């Protein structure tokens, strides 16, 4: 009986001692090797949407928060959260936030049904897949294929291919993440600010004759807009008109003058 008691006492003593020693070690280690985390980072992570979509250009929400605190990344860098989140981050960091201009993807092609099809495509519905065959079914090599690669790329369902076979952006759903812009194989989609009113709805660098053959609304590089613009904001380079949005006053003269109706004002 007494043997058993000694054994019990011994075991308790050894285990208890071990526990105490390891406990002390842990306390020392946690004091000594403490990782300094900035409480601000955690606070910012709290207010971010938490989708980890990567649209900001960093490896997720936590990474973005860290960069904002430590490396001075722009506090309005989260396109999904938008102005509200930027304001909250600004509150945490004590910075003033000015509401930036909203920008949405903009389709720089008005081809669609106005553009001639060279052949009848039957196959996998994807712009890149169509373009693997003979540079696409359209008569124009620069235009929108209208097969919806951008629609499939959009995680928020903000894009749709309309009756005119061109993508349309639903601004209520769009978060300006830019995934559609990255997915477009012909670079038709670009970000356009709401204040930029006048746009050339064509990307074709083909010569006038070739454009006329394939599309009824394509830019033929006639330079009428360039001559008519009072602000000298339009320049035709390589058979395509480009508008300098800084100079443009949205007077609408070029829209009236364009013989192909390829410039639009909104």
């Amino acid at each position, binding site marked *: 009986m007494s043997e058993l008691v000694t054994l019990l006492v011994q075991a308790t003593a050894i285990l208890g001692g071990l526990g105490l020693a390891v406990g002390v070690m842990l306390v020392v280690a946690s004091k000594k090797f403490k990782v300094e985390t900035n409480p601000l980072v955690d606070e910012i992570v709290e207010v971010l949407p938490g989708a980890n979509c990567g649209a900001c250009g960093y490896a997720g929400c936590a990474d973005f928060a860290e960069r904002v605190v430590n490396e001075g990344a722009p506090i309005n860098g989260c396109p999904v959260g938008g102005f509200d989140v930027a304001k909250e981050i600004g509150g945490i960091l004590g910075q003033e936030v000015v509401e930036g201009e909203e920008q949405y993807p903009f389709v720089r092609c008005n081809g669609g049904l106005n553009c001639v099809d060279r052949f009848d495509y*039957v196959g996998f519905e994807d712009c890149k897949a169509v373009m693997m065959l003979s*540079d696409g079914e359209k008569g124009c090599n620069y235009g929108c294929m209208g097969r919806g690669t951008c629609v499939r790329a959009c995680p928020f369902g903000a894009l749709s291919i309309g009756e005119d076979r061109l993508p349309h952006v639903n601004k209520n759903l769009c978060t300006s993440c830019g995934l559609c812009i990255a997915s477009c194989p012909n670079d038709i989609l670009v970000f356009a600010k709401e204040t930029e009113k006048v746009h050339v709805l064509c990307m074709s660098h083909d010569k006038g004759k070739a454009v006329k053959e394939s599309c009824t609304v394509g830019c033929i590089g006639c330079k009428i807009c360039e001559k008519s613009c009072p602000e000298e904001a339009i320049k035709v380079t390589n058979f395509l008109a480009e508008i300098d949005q800084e100079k443009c006053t949205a007077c609408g003269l070029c829209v009236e003058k364009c013989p192909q109706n390829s410039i639009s004002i909104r």
Partner: protein
Amino acid sequence: MEIKKLETLPEKVIIPLRQHRGAVCEPLVKKGDRVLIGQKIGGSAEYQSSAVHSSVCGEVIAIEEAAHPDGNKVMSVIIQPEDSNESVAFSACKDVKPDKLAEFIKESGIVEHYGMPTHTVLRPKGKKIDTVLINATSSEWIGGTFKTPDDYAFQMIDALKLLMKAAGAKKGAIVLRTDDKESIDAFEGIEVDKKKLKVAPLIGSRNVGYYFNEQNSDIVIVSQERIFGKKILNFFTYRVTGRKVKIGCDPTDAGVAVCGIRSAKALYDAVHEGTPFYDTVISVEGVSNKMEYLFVRIGTTFKDVIDSYGYTGEIGKIIANGVRTGVAQYTDQVPVTKGTTRISIQKPEEVIRGESIECIHCARCVDVCPVELIPSRLAVMADQGRFDECRQIHVENCIECGDCAAVCPSKIHILQLIRYAKDAIEMAYEDMPEKESSNLKLGCGCGGE
């Protein structure tokens, strides 16, 4: 086999300045120039390129971008022919030195039908070729201008020797198709270096290496079943020589050069008659049951070929290079190029426009796949953009034969999806800097480029 010669003078010939994979040639003529048959009209200083010659005598009416049977537009020389057979003086050059032969092949414009310039196959940079194969398994166009079957056999063996000389290879083989009696009869009992050769079938591990030993000869003639597809070279090399070609590599990495009958014949003609590669034999099929072989000049438009085939009705679809893996043409104003082997014509009512529906998991595609892939799974993954997973189940091994898409009862465009995935994988790894990609490199894994 009967070969019809295309006699009628075409209205215009379109000669693309790129009929190979590689650099586009610079035009050496200008609008208004008069050119002769066989005159060099395009050349490039790049190694990965091949010269282009005029196939007719006439006047250059334009140098502009024109449709190419591959689908894209390519800078082309458009010539209005005149009724004359005036040609540049051809002189046989039988004593070309082995080291000059590659340059000679490039200047003669000889190109493999799968696109590579022949000299780059025989003398790839930084690689050593020890075996040359002539693939005669899909020999619809063998007829050429051979007078007798014996003539064909002798010319082929002579061409093989030339190819071996150009590559500096010791061994060479001609691969025939098992059910191609005509060619087998032609080669049976032929004498090479005073040794009688037998046409030997490739069975199991008895590959060409075995027959080199057994027949104690550096040149053997073997036969095997037809392999069909667009990217068969690696698979073909494995079947014939037993050498495995790693993913992302080509047969030259295994020391094997695969040439076609067409380039072999072109080389024979270039050496013995001095004529560059400006005419070829293509087959035309469809509409009626007959298949016709036509001897045409390169640059003849498909329209002229179809006219001489004798079909005047409405055309639904024209397909270049075979109905399964070929490219459908959107216009008949495309030229026959060095890579065109066959033109298929379909009537409007023959054109199938099946819309694909959901996969029913019947696994017929898995059954027919000659390289034992799982096409149904690859198609789903490609559709969803999961290209890395496609790689994990070896999408690169696909030989693009099109069997899977042909048997699919749901009419899913499996081959197109697989090609799409392959293309996307190539694009994804294209821009990756060397250092970062060292352990994820897509290219050849066996040292070569």
